[in-house]
């Protein structure tokens, strides 16, 4: 068992489709400055830095070195972590391990991406095996559409069920000034009517059956920074530190065709590992809020079943019953989630930062209407792997 560690500060840029006013290093610097101000620290107080993005997306390299003037890493220990969509949670886990090891007291975790300077589908395809996969891989949207086809086939889920997830995410995003998509026209319209409007809209372009524009995350420019501190210091920095209760990750397959799309086994096993460590028996009852990496709509049905919030095939019922809405039993993604902002390398770290804000009670208009004892945060990697970090108000045992 390592030292107890808490999140004590969080900063993010406004997530936008294109930030032509800044370069990548400046974008990183924006998030770092906000996080330091949030924790009332200066860069001198930071003992080490962990940074990540998908650097081949932007066609750069050695982001740890490339960004040193923006991240504040000059003459500090710095480490780069790049794991696909999970990059942000992997950065968070790595920063947590740095502090939990007892070797560093305060560590800054940074995730960022400038999608306006990259070709997401081209980059995703070239991330796969050059001989076995690249020649015919389907790209960003197709890789998710295939999973939806299986879930719909196996459980009879419909396009409306998928749209119900999209509606929740976009309605929640209206409360979050940092979110990329603000679909103001949705304000005040009940969710079931919004679902009908979206499903019936001819402008809602089919991208890859069954996924339409409304089912997908956007491509976003943005950065996030989270500060982790050790017990003894954390309480002095933050009035309510968000303590790391447990964290876990799971990887599975070698080639894309090895993934059994029937269930998301990596998020299931990582979640169970976290629940075991934290002594959680009834996740839906015990967890107060989730910030989940849901890159597309149907993930919001199937993966919540794999996490263990309900049985297989019961995800749609939870959605339609409003259980995961802001005023529901267990709100999911008060921030609007990945479907409202997706700056890839920042995205999973934003889940951790937003979860921490909920625990601290400092999420503003997107704060859930209860005291948050436990916030469940997840990351998802393009190869169906999973990171989980559970944050809470009490120090872990």
């Amino acid at each position, binding site marked *: 068992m390592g030292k107890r560690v808490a999140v004590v500060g969080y900063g993010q840029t406004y997530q936008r489709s294109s930030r032509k006013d800044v370069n990548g290093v400046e974008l990183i610097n924006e998030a770092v400055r906000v996080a330091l101000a949030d924790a009332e620290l200066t860069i001198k107080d930071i003992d080490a830095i962990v940074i990540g993005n998908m650097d081949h997306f932007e066609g750069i390299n050695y982001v740890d070195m490339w960004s040193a003037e923006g991240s504040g890493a000059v003459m500090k220990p710095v480490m780069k972590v790049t794991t696909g969509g999970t990059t942000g949670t992997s950065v968070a886990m790595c920063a947590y391990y740095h502090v939990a090891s007892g070797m560093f007291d305060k560590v800054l975790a940074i995730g960022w991406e400038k999608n306006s300077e990259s070709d997401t589908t081209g980059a995703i*395809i070239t991330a796969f095996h050059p001989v076995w996969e690249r020649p015919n891989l389907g790209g960003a*949207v197709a890789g998710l559409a295939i999973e939806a086809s299986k879930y719909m086939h196996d459980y009879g889920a419909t396009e409306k069920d998928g749209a119900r997830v999209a509606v929740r995410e976009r309605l929640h995003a209206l409360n979050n000034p940092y979110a990329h998509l603000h679909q103001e026209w949705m304000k005040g319209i009940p969710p079931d009517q919004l679902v009908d409007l979206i499903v019936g809209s001819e402008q809602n372009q089919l991208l890859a059956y069954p*996924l339409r524009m409304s089912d997908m995350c956007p491509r976003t420019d943005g950065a996030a920074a989270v500060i982790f501190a050790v017990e003894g210091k954390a309480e002095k920095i933050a009035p309510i530190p968000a303590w790391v209760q447990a964290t876990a990750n799971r990887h599975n397959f070698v080639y894309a065709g090895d993934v059994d799309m029937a269930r998301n086994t990596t998020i299931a096993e990582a979640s169970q590992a976290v629940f075991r460590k934290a002594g959680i028996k009834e996740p839906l009852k015990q967890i107060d809020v989730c910030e989940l990496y849901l890159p597309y709509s149907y993930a919001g049905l199937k993966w919540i079943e794999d996490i263990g919030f309900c049985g297989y095939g019961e995800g749609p019922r939870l959605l339609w019953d409003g259980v995961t809405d802001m005023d529901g039993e267990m709100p999911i993604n008060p921030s609007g989630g990945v479907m409202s902002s997706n700056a890839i390398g920042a995205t999973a770290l934003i889940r951790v930062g937003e979860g921490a804000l909920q625990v601290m009670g400092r999420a503003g208009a997107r704060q859930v209407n209860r005291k948050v004892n436990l916030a469940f945060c997840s990351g998802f990697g393009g190869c169906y792997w999973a990171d989980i970090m559970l944050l809470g108000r009490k120090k872990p045992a």
Partner: protein
Amino acid sequence: MVTSGDSSQPFNWTVDEYGSTFLREMRDHKKLVGIKCPKCGKVYVPPRPVCGQCYVGMNEIVPVSDEGEIYVFTIVHFGFVDPNTGVQRPVPHGYAFIKLDGADTCLTHFLDSVDPVKVKVGARVKAVFEPKRTGSMMDIKHFKVL
């Protein structure tokens, strides 16, 4: 050699012994093979030297069919440039994970059809080989939906 439009890039990749067997069998005989784990019995396509689940070495090459079924699929409607060739992928096109008869993992490939009635989870498909084959995954042109 990787080609992209009119230009080529000096990349070459080594595949292991079993991967070489797969590519050779496909190129020379239009036959597909997998590899069987001695512990769990799972048949992997394409073949590779280690069963990750059991963490044991594998060496038993087994034949698999050039027919199978669609495990998962999509019909891609948005156009994008294939980063391998520099050529726009045709839209719409069918794309699927195909479970070949005799295999436990899937091959990812294109389908010949975009017909929503025919292209479904569980639909039967058969590999269509290129007449001139070079030892690449594209020696299979696509899978024909039966």
